[in-house]
């Protein structure tokens, strides 16, 4: 149930169309928003001169008979909760940023005092490498007690959330901040993830219900992602990307920025490598690199250790061949000898034990994120 005391703020937030600056301006004029409601109800608009006629009309419309009742009833019915910047439950870190969202809609459980909120963001068009890394960091950070903040976009954001949710029994594994209304599933392909986060984590947005995912919503949304977090990890970013915006906002807000270094030839690592080069981001190669910034102990890197000697002769030859880089079946056959049937069944075994992984196009590589081989 939504606290009736929140109604004035909901009313104003509706009227200004979730614009935090206009909201703040009205707040400055009226300490008690009830007075503003009173004025609008009676048509005294003089103290609201800083607002455009359109906004004033919306405010009047919202004062109309039963409007707020319907609005609140709709929120209740759809399982949407509301927290405002004046309430006690408002996330403490978010309160500190220059223009905190005055009203947040959320589904799921909102933890005002998250232990270690870390944002993982990156390109929507991620590579296989970015996908693996995002899932892995999402998972390992949650195991170390962190909460993953992300944007529920396709690509890195989605995979990070997926990695976080894969930790069973975790408390507050993930928060997703939307660039659209709380009831809008965007991108549509993420519907499963949307539901999973609403159930086990928290979905939030400052935008009014039914707001479509307009392009200019996202930069505005990004300040909440970084604002909620102690640090922002950029996994992959192209030359001009929204992740770079999030990273810059994080720096302005005084938060830590981390980036995963990539190959200099990878288009999707241009942005991250540039952040590292300019000194804006700390290069990160393991979860511990992030944890040590916040004085958290080494949580272990979730990597299993396998003795090279314990492998069969053919397995040893395969592992040896793959240390030189990824190879397809033909190349492995040339490097390791033996029959193709033998090789294929060996590859299945090695994949299942997490020693190697299969990339698209029947290419194999050592799964160094999973397994450390000791010679």
């Amino acid at each position: 149930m939504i606290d009736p005391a929140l109604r004035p703020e909901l009313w104003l937030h509706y009227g200004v169309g979730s614009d935090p600056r206009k909201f703040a301006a009205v707040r400055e004029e009226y300490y008690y928003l009830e007075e503003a409601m009173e004025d609008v109800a009676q048509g005294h608009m003089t103290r609201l001169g800083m607002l455009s006629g359109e906004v004033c009309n919306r405010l009047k419309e919202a004062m109309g008979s039963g409007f707020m009742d319907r609005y609140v009833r709709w929120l209740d019915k759809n399982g949407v909760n509301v927290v405002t910047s004046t309430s006690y439950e408002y996330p403490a870190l978010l309160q500190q940023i220059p223009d905190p969202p005055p009203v947040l809609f959320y589904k799921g459980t909102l933890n005002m005092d998250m232990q270690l909120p870390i944002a993982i963001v990156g390109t929507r068009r991620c590579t296989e490498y970015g996908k693996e890394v995002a899932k892995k960091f999402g998972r390992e950070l949650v195991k170390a007690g962190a909460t993953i903040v992300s944007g529920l976009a396709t690509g890195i954001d989605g995979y990070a959330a997926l990695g976080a949710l894969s930790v069973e029994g975790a408390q507050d594994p993930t928060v997703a901040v939307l660039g659209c209304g709380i009831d809008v599933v965007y991108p549509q392909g993420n519907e499963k993830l949307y539901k999973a986060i609403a159930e086990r984590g928290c979905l939030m947005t400052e935008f009014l219900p039914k707001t479509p995912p307009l392009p200019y919503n996202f930069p505005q949304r990004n300040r909440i992602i970084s604002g909620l977090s102690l640090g922002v990890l950029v996994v992959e970013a192209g030359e001009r990307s929204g992740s770079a915006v999030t990273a810059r906002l994080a720096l302005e807000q005084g938060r830590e920025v981390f980036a995963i270094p990539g190959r200099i030839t990878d288009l999707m690592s241009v942005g991250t490598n540039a952040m590292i080069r300019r000194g804006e981001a700390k290069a990160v190669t393991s979860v511990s690199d992030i944890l040590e910034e916040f004085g958290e102990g080494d949580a272990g890197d979730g990597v299993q250790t396998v003795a090279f000697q314990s492998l069969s002769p053919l397995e040893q030859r395969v592992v040896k061949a793959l240390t030189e880089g990824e190879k397809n079946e033909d190349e492995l056959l040339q490097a390791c000898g033996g029959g193709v049937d033998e090789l294929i069944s060996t590859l299945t075994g090695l994949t299942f034990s997490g020693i190697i992984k299969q990339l698209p196009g029947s290419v194999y590589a050592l799964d160094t994120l999973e397994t450390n081989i000791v010679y």
Partner: protein
Amino acid sequence: MLSQANSFGLLGLKGFPVKVEADISGGLPAYETVGLPDTAVRESRERVRAALKNAGFAFPGDRRITVSLAPADLRKEGSVYDLPIALAILSASGQMKQAPLVRAVYLGELALNGAVRGVNGVLPMVISAREAGESVFFVPRENAGEAACVEGVRVFPVDDLGQLVRFLRGEGDMTPLPKTEFSPEEVPAPWDFGDIRGQAAAKRAAEIAAAGGHNLLLCGTPGSGKTMLARAIPSILPPMTAAECMEVTKIHSVAGHRGLVAVRPFRSPHHGASSAAITGGGVNAMPGEISLAHMGVLFLDEFPEFQRDVLESLRQPLEDGMVTVSRARMSCTYPASFMLVAAMNPCPCGNRGSRTRTCTCTPSEIRRYARRISGPLLDRIDLFIEMNDVPFEDLSGQERGEASASIRQRVVAARERQRLRFGPDSVRTNARMTVQQIESFCPLDSDCQKLMEMAFRRMDLSARAYQRIRKVARTIADLDGSDRIQQKHLSEAIRYRRLSILREDEL
């Protein structure tokens, strides 16, 4: 005067006897054809008139001619009745005797100069006529080869009307064709596995598919050799038996392909094909590509680009090995037991997984592309294999691969093991095993069970996939000459279930 000649008609692959009757009487000059003739049959009037005249016979054009094709309630199609109609008119007008016309079956189209041209569907007609007790056939020389391979018939090849009439009058001489044996020839396949460089895993998958009659999906970047591999598959399938050749030739004969089919068919319809072209249809309920690929390979390149209804219409024939084509006027059942080889790109732009080119597709584009192939259809495909492009140096550098002939020997041996296991007349290949047969022929020991559990956890498999993997493992064990499925067989089989584009753990 009244006269009659025997001929045959076709309904699907089944023939029915047609009595061609001609009556010539006084009255206003006229020519009437009755007995549900289609346009080609009705036009026979013009061909018969000209052919009779040019072959040196008289056409009773000043009398009333009635031609009736009995039974009157079945539709008659094509030009096959030209010859019997001409003979019946000749007999009715007193130019030859009636007797020989009812002791043999006459098939053939007439040219205006009196020559006899080939027609469609001679083999199934002769087979049905033989079953109905006919034994003497006069067929166009073009079709004589296929007709003469039927047991216990005398087939006279006819070159022109004049020659035939002289023979029937006892003036000339004609020799029946000796019985032609269906010899599944060793035609060198146009594509040999030895020509394909690299792609060891894909070739291995093709070998397994051929050995167990499994359906195969190739997924790879453009230029990775999917089409080449698919085209080479008939060269490793076991040679057809005489009975199989006969069955395939029958279907091809109905579809208008003349001559004997002695090598396994390879059909590759374009992805724009309609569902009628694939499964069969048209006014005459003709066989479609899946029936023409009977006993051979149906290759569908650019698999996701086929229309959805076309792909879905494959499901039932894939399961039953036959298809019933129903049209308003008729309904025909054609055999359609083929090996499906499908090929697709790994993503819409085609470069996913390539090392030389970069993929520009978004995950949702890839997902949408993969979803064009429905789950039920994928469930009917046993082996998935990904192929990647071969760099040029590899193409020129490597030595020839193993030749088709030696792969085929292993395939034949594995098929023989299956034949012994299943006994005659029931299921012929591992791919067609029923659930009960899987239970009794594909037991998994405890090591294999453990591996299977691991696969389920890691790969998120369905119950159907479980059965598919066991079938493929059975075939791999057969190729290995092993009576029981060992762990190495199973782990190889599991590998052919992985296709990164279809992986379910995506968002």
